[in-house]
């Protein structure tokens, strides 16, 4: 009887017959539903313009339309004491690894939440290490990314009420790869990936390197450049570290303001930002020009990372590296990078090492890391601990 009440609360119709111990339940709900739109956050130049919506049925059909095969399995879970949210575990039988599947099922059953408002709730509950800077589960709005991942043997979780699907396991590299990488000719992808990887490094290391070079090892900078920097910094009131920190703080502040402002107010922030930090601060002599260049380059570099949530760890790392480098120079920078590498090497996403296939090295799977080899040249079945 309690089960029946639950079904009715979910909008189903129950048919009770006299003298029968069981009832028939039919799904007759009709929801208000957003139409399928292009996902703005993950737009690509080429490829599908469809994005997930809040309705899990529509999302499931988007995947089913792309993968027409009996091996595509969807298991339903109900999570959330009050919200009774439906979560679908989607995988390809035969491609996905059984052990990973079993552990995900077990974790899903173990979730004790009052409610699931977004897939982020589930992400935090099932990920291996919640204290890591790096997310071990990818979220995406794109059905084509989910389908491609499923075919690689990954597992997806669809959550009712949110367009964001979860994909697992992931590696560091999957955050740096864009769907466009697979849609463009592979030769050009070599260039764009190279740029993206270099820019990613710049996005967390450049402010620290600048501080280390100019204040700890000025002999390493070419003479003319060093004298130019010295000329620019002749009347600076703050030490370089503080100046860089202030600029980074202001930059991130403006970025945060821009995210939350309604569209009409966006230009106001950019005008104030450009005038205040771009011009007035330099003219007043508070901030020196090279630092503006360094910080804007760093900021732009972070935007080359295709997924917003993948930029976040690097934005935080920037500060950590800056502090430790401001203290110890390149020694500190080296410490920072070493600890970062130690953490990344130790980190796992559902049995897959986070730096795989680079560490541990896997020659067959590395074909999708730096160079995206043409599809016919790729091989290797993904399983636990072995992912590309």
């Amino acid at each position, binding site marked *: 009887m309690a089960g029946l009440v639950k079904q009715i609360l979910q909008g189903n119709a129950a048919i009770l017959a006299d003298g029968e111990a069981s009832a028939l339940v039919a799904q007759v709900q009709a929801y208000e539903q957003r139409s399928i739109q292009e996902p703005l956050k993950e737009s690509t130049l080429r490829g599908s313009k469809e994005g997930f919506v809040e309705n899990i049925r529509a999302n499931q059909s988007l995947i089913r339309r792309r993968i027409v095969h009996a091996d595509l399995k969807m298991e339903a879970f109900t999570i959330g004491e009050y919200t009774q949210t439906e979560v679908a575990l989607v995988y390809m039988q035969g491609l996905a690894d059984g052990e990973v599947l079993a552990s995900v099922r077990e974790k899903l059953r173990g979730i004790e939440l009052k409610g699931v408002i977004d897939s982020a709730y589930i992400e935090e509950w099932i990920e291996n290490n919640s204290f890591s800077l790096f997310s071990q589960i990818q979220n995406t709005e794109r059905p084509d990314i989910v389908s491609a991942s499923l075919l690689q043997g990954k597992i997806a979780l669809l959550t009712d009420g949110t367009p964001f699907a979860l994909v697992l396991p992931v590696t560091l590299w999957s955050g740096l790869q864009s769907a466009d990488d697979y849609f463009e000719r592979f030769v050009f992808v070599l260039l764009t990936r190279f740029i993206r990887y270099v820019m990613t490094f710049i996005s967390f290391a450049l402010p620290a390197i600048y501080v280390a070079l100019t*204040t700890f090892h000025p002999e390493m900078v070419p003479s003319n450049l060093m004298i130019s920097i*010295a000329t620019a*910094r*002749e009347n600076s009131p703050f030490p370089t570290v503080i100046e860089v920190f202030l600029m980074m703080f202001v930059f991130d502040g403006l970025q945060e303001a821009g995210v939350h402002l309604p569209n009409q107010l966006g230009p106001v922030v950019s005008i104030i930002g450009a005038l205040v930090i771009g011009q007035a601060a330099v003219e007043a002599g508070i901030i020196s020009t090279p630092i503006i260049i360094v910080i804007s380059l760093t900021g732009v570099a972070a935007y080359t990372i295709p997924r917003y949530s993948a930029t976040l760890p690097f934005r935080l790392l920037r500060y950590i590296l800056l502090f430790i480098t401001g*203290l110890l120079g390149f020694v500190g920078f080296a410490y920072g990078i070493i600890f970062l590498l130690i953490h990344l090497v130790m980190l796992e996403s559902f049995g897959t090492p986070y730096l795989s296939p680079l560490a541990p090295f896997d020659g067959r799977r590395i074909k999708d890391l730096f160079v995206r080899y043409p599809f016919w040249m790729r091989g290797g079945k993904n399983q636990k601990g072995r992912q590309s």
Partner: protein
Amino acid sequence: MRSLLLAACCLLAPIALSACTDAVEPNQLAFVMGTAVDRAEGGLIEISDQIVIPSQLSGPFAGGGAGDAKSSVVVSATGRDVFEASEKIQRKMSRRLMTSHRILIAISEAFFKQDDAGKLFDKLGRDPANNMRDLTLVVRGDSAKELLMLKHPLERLTSIAAEKELHINGLTRFSSRQLILEHDAGGLRPLLPVLKVEKLKSDGKAPEPFASLYGFAVLNKQLRIQGILDEEESAAAGWMSGKVAYHGMTIPGKNGQGLLSFRLVHLKRKIRTKDCGESKCAELEVKAQAYLVENTTSLDMSEIRSMTETERYLNEEIQRNFQRTVKKIQRWGPDIFGIGEHLHRHDPYWWRSRQGDWDERFKTLDVTVRTDVRLISIGSSGGNMN
């Protein structure tokens, strides 16, 4: 949570109080671009540092124009050795001297003639604060300090000007690192460029003093100047010691009428040695590609025959000139070509017993010059202009 806050404070506090680290801001540094070494009274060394003044450079973040007024200052002090003198300079300065960006070490001819310059370079090799990429050169006359105080019509600093002047003329291997290597090597003696201060007249104004390349100085094992080569000999010596990258040459025509000018590129040299009875014989082969750029003789270069003739004639001329230069240097003694070093590597047993008196042996060594200069272009106009 409390421990996290504490950790954050621990990280933040030292940055605010960062005076105790070895970080130094660019505006606490005095960039030394050039150093001059002179003799002072009573056997002391006078060190003069040319220091840039960043605030005097034009523009907020600009490279500065030609000969900015007072964009540098020269500070001198005397001492018993380099470090003592440098410390005295440091005491006069409000900023820490930074010698890693030095471009030039200018040493006066007088210093090389009378002092043991080897001691000078001990500091350069030992002190890690030197980058050793700086050029070392000799300033003709008594005062190297004067060179640093000159104004250059094109460049911001005379040090930069001197470095560029050498670089643009293909003289690239004269760093202080090279000098230290040569000083330490058994069978190679240093060759240093010599700058001379002369008057340059520019657009009607009073002539201004100006430093320009004069030639090369030949130094012996004790780093004393044995002699200074003139322009033509310098070119030959530079080429034969493998330190010059390109060279222009003008020779008189074969029958004494007109002139032929060549641009020589891809300058190479090779040493070969063989046994000649008791001693060794050395052969210096110089190779180059020649471009004919000016021809005022009556030769018609569009004819193959005159081309091959010119090539042969050019080779003969170079051979004659170079042989003469070798003879002159052999008379002075120091082996600037590195023939000793070649023997050291190819015949170490022979070398071991003779390295002690190499300078004496070099004087009587049989050195022949061979040339292999190819004329690869006669220029864009083949025949003679009428």
